[in-house]
């Protein structure tokens, strides 16, 4: 909880194929630890594909192939010796649509802890509380932990899913459009927790909302048709991008 993650991710010359479809072309990108990096680009440019490469979620899709190297804290995540379950604990993920289990609020967050072999009830209780607090939803649910998670609003469900991802203490958190289905208040809450969370972890967020990328991230990477066009500090990218393609995209001049 108090331990700071120093884990960053380094990708080099990543190629990705859905069978014959070449979806990512030679992507080399570093994600520094304790920073937020936003991935932006038009629909279909490969943001989600790239994000899923980072915790091997693409392995679940038949016929896919990855080339190049992806290192987590210097360690090749595609090495045959690597424990994929442990990788996904270290690199957590939050999806676009909140997907709580049809269980109690408490159980949603405790689930991952139990799967990871934790049995001590007090410790589980403490860690559930801590995770709910870090996801900025504790105040809203502390009196109804035994209620069904499905009774929460969309924004609350999404923060519950963030708590669920945080409970197992990942070092990296991948977020694929985590706020696209939420209202402005819920979005703001999620963005606030992103600011808080980065002192503990490395965050990579895919977003279609340019202003959101500008608000929450330290670095921004712009993808276009499976290639990385430009990557740099968010301040620079949103005030004076180096590439005309980036400028045209972020100012809404093509799409």
């Amino acid at each position, binding site marked *: 909880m108090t331990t700071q993650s120093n884990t960053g991710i380094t990708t080099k010359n990543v190629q990705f194929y859905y069978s014959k479809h070449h979806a990512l072309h030679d992507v080399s990108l570093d994600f520094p630890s304790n920073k937020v990096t936003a991935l932006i680009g038009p629909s279909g440019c490969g943001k989600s594909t790239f994000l899923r490469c980072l915790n091997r979620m693409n392995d679940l899709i038949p016929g896919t192939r990855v080339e190049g190297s992806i290192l987590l804290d210097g360690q090749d995540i595609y090495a045959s010796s690597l424990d994929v379950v442990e990788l996904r604990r270290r690199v957590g993920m939050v999806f676009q649509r909140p997907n709580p289990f049809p269980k109690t609020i408490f159980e949603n967050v405790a689930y991952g802890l139990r799967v990871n072999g934790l049995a001590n009830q007090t410790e589980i209780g403490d860690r559930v509380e801590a995770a709910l607090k870090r996801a900025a939803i504790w105040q809203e649910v502390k009196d109804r932990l035994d209620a069904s998670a499905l009774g929460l609003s969309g924004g609350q469900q999404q923060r519950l899913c963030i708590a669920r991802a945080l409970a197992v203490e990942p070092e990296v958190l991948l977020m694929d459009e985590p706020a696209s289905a939420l209202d402005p208040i819920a979005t703001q809450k999620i963005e606030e927790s992103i600011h808080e969370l980065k002192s503990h972890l490395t965050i990579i967020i895919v977003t279609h909302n340019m*202003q959101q990328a500008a608000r929450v991230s330290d670095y921004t990477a712009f993808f276009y048709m499976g290639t990385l066009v430009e990557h740099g500090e968010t301040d620079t990218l949103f*005030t*004076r991008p180096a590439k005309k393609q*980036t400028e045209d995209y972020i100012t809404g*001049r093509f799409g």
Partner: protein
Amino acid sequence: MTAHDTHLHTQLTHLRTRLLVMCAEAREAVERACIALEEGNTPLAVQVIDHDHTINALENEIDSLALSILARAQPVARDLRFLVSTLRMAVDLERIGDEAVSIAERALLIQQDKDQCTSPQLRELMQVARRALQSALTAFQQEDMPLALQVSRGSADVTQLEVRLLHDSLPSPESAEPNSYGRQLHTMHQLLVARALTRIYGRAANIAEHAYFMVEGTSLKHKTHAEAQGQ
């Protein structure tokens, strides 16, 4: 990639049009004030003074347009730089309008003392300031960075010109000419006109800097010439 015009870009185009109108108004005010002074044209001087409210109103209009776009569209990159430059330009243009008014006021006062004529230095300063303003506005409109750099570099020369004018305006101790009250007053008016012209030059240099910032995304203000040229 297909380019297309969004609501934001229509608004930005409108804002740019209004800013160009303000540029033209400010330049016209300076031109008229200078001609009024040179030719002793009282009606023209009065016109400049009466017309200043138009420039003030344009500043307000541009301010609210720009603020509304910032609040509602959250523009980035070159759109953001254009908006920031526009807000800064509007401030400088409004002040240029004020300087034109003070030249016009001097023109009216000097009028009352017909036998005194404007000094050659003052006429030179007038030329330099008018040309600088014209160049700065062209640099902005046509995104001509060499021209912007040229205007921003000229400030030192203008200061020298003003110092020379000040020096020459004071009666030398060995001068036989009587230092009449009328002459002193005339000198005073000329110095105030020179001050206004120097300030117009300064504002023109600012405009050149805003143009540079808009195009290059970096500030010219605290940069050496070598740095600005080298990049």
